């Protein structure tokens, strides 16, 4: 396993491997996302309380999931980059940020839009949306710190420290926001009303999440390849690629 790990750290190997993986990730993710969309919009039965409006769940929940998942991946890659001094890990961390921030923004906007017919307002300070908002701030801060350095190595390492500090804070932030929202209103009013979901309604959700995950894999492959080329400016292996 370690040989694989260190092999991956070698840029020419990684470049080739990522190039081979990308189409697999890409096409399967496309298929799954389309399938999940059709299933969620057409095949799944309408909700008892929310009618067809609940179908927003099928894009909102996977986005929220990805926003958090990607941050964790970003932080783990950052830690690997710092500990083992692997440029590729830092490159992966950098590649995660724009996608992660996009999903966070998407989760926020779809959550807000979903809120209007459900609670009558465009924004509510409920636990999920507030946590996503703070997560967006963390992503933006990460990207701002990265871009404020001219030296790419320094940018990598400083951003890595920030990502790790951020990921440690995320459980604390989640818990404190959860605690904060239960103080003034009974839980039933503030929670995104999701009654016990029946299995036929869950399937498109799982399909969409897996589709998004594979999509993220594809995006990461593409961006990482670009980053590898950028960081290996004058290496001789480039001629073979």
């Amino acid at each position, binding site marked *: 396993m370690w040989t694989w790990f260190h092999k991956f750290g070698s840029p020419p190997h990684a470049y080739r491997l990522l190039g081979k993986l990308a189409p697999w990730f890409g096409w399967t993710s496309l298929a799954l996302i389309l399938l999940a969309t059709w299933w969620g919009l057409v095949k799944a039965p309408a909700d008892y309380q929310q009618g067809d409006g609940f179908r927003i769940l099928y894009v909102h929940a996977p986005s929220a999931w990805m926003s958090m998942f990607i941050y964790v991946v970003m932080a783990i890659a950052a830690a690997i980059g710092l500990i083992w001094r692997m440029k590729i890990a830092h490159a992966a961390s950098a590649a995660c940020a724009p996608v992660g921030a996009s999903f966070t923004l998407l989760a926020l906007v779809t959550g807000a839009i979903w809120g209007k017919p459900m609670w009558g307002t465009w924004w509510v300070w409920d636990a999920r949306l507030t946590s996503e908002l703070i997560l967006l701030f963390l992503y933006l*801060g990460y990207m701002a710190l990265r871009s404020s350095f001219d030296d790419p190595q320094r940018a990598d390492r400083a951003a890595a420290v920030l990502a790790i500090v951020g990921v440690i804070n995320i459980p604390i932030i989640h818990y*404190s926001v959860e605690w904060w929202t239960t103080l003034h209103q009974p839980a039933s009013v503030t929670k995104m009303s999701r009654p016990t979901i029946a299995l036929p309604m869950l399937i498109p959700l799982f399909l969409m999440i897996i589709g998004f995950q594979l999509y993220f894999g594809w995006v990461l492959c593409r961006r990482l390849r670009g980053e590898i080329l950028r960081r290996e400016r004058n290496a001789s292996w480039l001629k073979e690629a």
Partner: protein
Amino acid sequence: MSLAPTWQAARLVLQRDLTLATRRWDEAAQPLIFYVVVTTLFPLATTPDLSQLRVISGGVVWVAALLASLLALESLFRSDVEDGTMEQWVLSGQPLGWLLLAKVLAHWILTGLPLVLMAPVVGTALGLPFSAWGTLMLSLLMGTGTLSILGGIGAALTVGVRRGSVLLSLLVLPLAMPLLIFGARAVAMAMDGESPSGPLQLLAAIFFLSLSLGPLAMSAAIRISVEN
């Protein structure tokens, strides 16, 4: 490894920073003045009615303390990095975390502690009752302490960045939101007669967590900022 040289070094750093600050009173006083000015903004923006202000008094004092602390944090490491002292510390072989913690402590004594002591005054101006003074001060004591450490990490990361103060705030504020939630809530509970021990204990837990992990992150960040 004997602890004595580290302890002495840390103590020297503490003494040096405190002495330096006494020669620049205005710099130490500015965050405090900012604090008072900001708390004045809220009644002006809303209402002079104390019974209404009372409801948000804990939150306003906390937010003002947060912002005033952030203002002061930008200069925490700047002068030492610029004149090369920090590089010496990194190379010295002394555990960097302790030296940085000593600096943070000095900084907190000069900027954080005055905010804590001044809090009952500005709180009362917003209608905060005497019964909540203790909770207000205790929560701010732990809160400003944690914030100094979190801010120290942010300052260490942004020390080389031009006009890094806005970036510093952008980085530190999201991390400080749990502090704000628990601290302000503790004060509100004390005002309502409930026991604030829950959120106060959570604040304490966060403080000790940052005390143990913070110096690690700070020294990593300083090394990155200083090394070539």
